[in-house]
């Protein structure tokens, strides 16, 4: 189906184009990760994701033992616009899952 022009990967954003309508992984600043279906993006890596799961990780120091306690919290959002300036990396669909 795909023509040569559609499937050629010449620059990084081409790889993201091939992930349209697929579930992708996005790592963001401030220890946030998203998994969701890619519905739109632009050259800034602004995106719209669907059926999004967000995982945020925070580290707290226990007052008494001074041990680091790593907490992760999860939530899901039906549709999310993500501003591109917070994006660290985008990974195409995981073939393993």
């Amino acid at each position, binding site marked *: 189906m795909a023509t040569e022009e559609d499937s050629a990967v010449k620059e990084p954003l081409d790889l993201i184009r091939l992930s349209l309508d697929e579930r992708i992984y996005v790592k963001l600043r401030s220890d946030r990760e998203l998994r969701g279906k890619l519905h*739109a993006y632009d050259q800034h890596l602004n995106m719209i994701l669907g059926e999004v799961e967000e995982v945020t990780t925070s580290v707290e120091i226990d007052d008494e033992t001074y041990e680091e306690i790593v907490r992760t919290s999860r939530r899901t959002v039906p*549709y999310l616009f993500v501003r591109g300036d917070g994006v660290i990396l985008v990974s195409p669909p995981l073939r393993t899952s």
Partner: protein
Amino acid sequence: MLFFSYFKELVGKEVIVELKNDLAISGILHSVDQYLNIKLENTRVVDDTKYPHMLSVKNCFIRGSVVRYVQLPPDGVDVDILHDATRREARGG
């Protein structure tokens, strides 16, 4: 231009704008500009017990650069239109 056009279509719908200072503001999208600065009407801070800083604000302007996420209403997302617009933009259109 893709997201500027998209948000213009969304005017009048309810969104939740999450900022990079962890504040989440819900409201009716009133307008947007090319920087993706956003104006909201009938606003409410989602957790206004923890964040009472905007209790007397009902309309606000949010600078695009401080936006982390915008939660979109499901009836404001047409995935086929978004896919087409994205492919067109990717081709440099």
